[in-house]
């Protein structure tokens, strides 16, 4: 039997405990900044978790995943500007728009492999980035301020920062749980098998394209939801959210935390964004420190931080 109290489980447990109790600290001290920072971290961890589903488990290195963040965000922003502030309409539409985008992009780029796949996903993300820049009515390059957060008929009040934080955290935990069920189901085994050896998968009788496409779309929908959260968090949406460097950040989070690990994206998001926050106070060249750290992780810990923690027990 596997031991329960491994270093890795303790670290993950401590991290989850910290995230759950953070608002308490905020309420007691009255300092709201950590809550703002960690709401952002939790939302981006959700986005990274969705990317991990296709990148870590499916071997589909999408370099345009931030497009869904923007897509989800713009659906919320545009609807809010046009007077539709109900979250029951905004969020399902944000997810549906992401699904539609995912089907279109996936149907084309999943016919390619390797560098071509990376380039085509990037190209589509750039396309939608420039579409957003061209939306003059919705702020174009300058972005769009959202004056009212999504409303849920009194069910939750997103303008309450603590409530909003807990909603984001609950959605993140739900997403991680969902991914854990998914990757161990028959569907997930097909996705992982086709990362490992797609040609063999087809030879033993799997039409892998449709499974990979379904997975690609699911990841997009999950990230679209993260986009809707992010827009509500910042009360603002602009094309910058889907800049290709944002997609790169998501990949960095996954590599840092651990590809194909359930909690890897969360660990990576917390590590990268707290480092960014802490170091940028010391120096504006904080990337000089994060860059070599990433290099170190890639060279010495192939499974990222999560993989290194798990490896402590193998000695």
């Amino acid at each position, binding site marked *: 039997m596997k031991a329960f109290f491994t270093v890795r489980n303790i670290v993950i447990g401590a991290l989850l405990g910290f995230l759950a109790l953070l608002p308490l600290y905020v309420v007691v001290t009255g300092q709201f900044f950590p809550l703002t920072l960690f709401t952002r971290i939790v939302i981006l961890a959700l986005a990274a978790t969705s990317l991990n589903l296709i990148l870590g488990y499916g071997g589909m290195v999408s370099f345009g995943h931030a497009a869904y963040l923007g897509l989800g965000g713009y659906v919320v922003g545009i609807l809010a500007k046009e007077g539709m502030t109900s979250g029951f309409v905004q969020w399902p539409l944000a997810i549906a728009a992401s699904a539609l985008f995912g089907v279109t992009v996936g149907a084309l780029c999943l016919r390619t492999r390797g560098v071509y796949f990376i380039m085509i996903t990037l190209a589509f993300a750039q396309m939608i980035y420039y579409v957003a820049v061209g939306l003059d009515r919705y702020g174009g390059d300058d972005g769009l301020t959202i004056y009212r957060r999504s409303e849920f008929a009194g069910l939750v009040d997103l303008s309450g920062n603590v409530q909003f934080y807990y909603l984001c955290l609950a959605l993140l935990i739900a997403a991680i749980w969902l991914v854990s069920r998914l990757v161990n189901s028959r569907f997930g085994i097909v996705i992982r098998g086709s990362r490992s050896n797609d040609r063999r998968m087809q*030879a033993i009788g799997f039409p892998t394209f449709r499974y990979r496409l379904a997975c690609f779309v699911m990841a997009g929908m999950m990230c679209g939801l993260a986009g809707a959260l992010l827009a509500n968090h910042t009360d603002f949406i602009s094309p910058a959210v889907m800049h290709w460097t944002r997609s790169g950040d998501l990949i960095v989070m996954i590599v840092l935390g651990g590809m194909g690990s359930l909690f890897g994206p969360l660990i990576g998001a917390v590590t990268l964004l707290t480092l960014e926050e802490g170091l940028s106070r010391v120096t504006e060249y904080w990337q000089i420190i994060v860059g070599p750290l990433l290099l170190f992780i890639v060279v010495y810990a192939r499974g990222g931080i999560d993989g290194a923690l798990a490896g402590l027990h193998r000695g």
Partner: protein
Amino acid sequence: MADPLLQVRDLTKRFGGVLACDCICLEVPAGELHAIIGPNGAGKSTLISQLAGEINPDAGRISFDGRDITRIPSHRRSALGLARSFQITSLFLDFTVLDNVALAVQAHAGHSFRFWRPARSDVKLHGPALAALARVGLESRAHVVCANLSHGEHRQLEIAMALATAPRMFLLDEPMAGLGPDESARMIALLRELKREQTILLIEHDMDAVFRLADRITVLVDGRVIASGKPDAIRSDEAVRQAYLGTKKAGQHRSPRFDAIES
């Protein structure tokens, strides 16, 4: 007499200026073990790739059980009952041995849009997978990660995965490649047992194995069939001897492989 299970008519494949398969005709009746031999570059692997659906032929027709399968993708051929093993071991190295075989079972157990129940504790997948492993003698290695198996065990696993899809015909691409004498003997015993109930198309370099196992042999040289018949007839065929000996007179530069033909 009934139609052959596999029928190949005038199959032709060109790679640039190279004619890899030149009007190949082949018939494999149900229950037969049909071997294909030929020197390196004769087009054997190209032929099997076309049969399995990984390469599309330029011309010709392949039918399986009376059905034209020339243009259908490989996963549908697998569903019809054609199981292929690979010359270069092609497994899921990061999965356990059992998971490899269970995946092959899953491929033929309905669709896999099942998102919730854990597949790795699914008895419907593990039962048949273990049975297939038992048949090739790998059941004791079921929970080992595939990358940690020996080369010989990989070859056995290849066969188990083909078996697990409960096929109607095997396409085996050099199952003996790279095996030592003991492992080869074990593989021959396994194939001999398989052929009792299965139709098999076997591509193999090991002449000893081919002449011991095959009901019929087809010889390919430069993409063309130069002879096809029972092992005895092939052994004494002049064109085959020429092909394996080149233009040299008999006795000079004999390939050790050819000794098996004569012995």
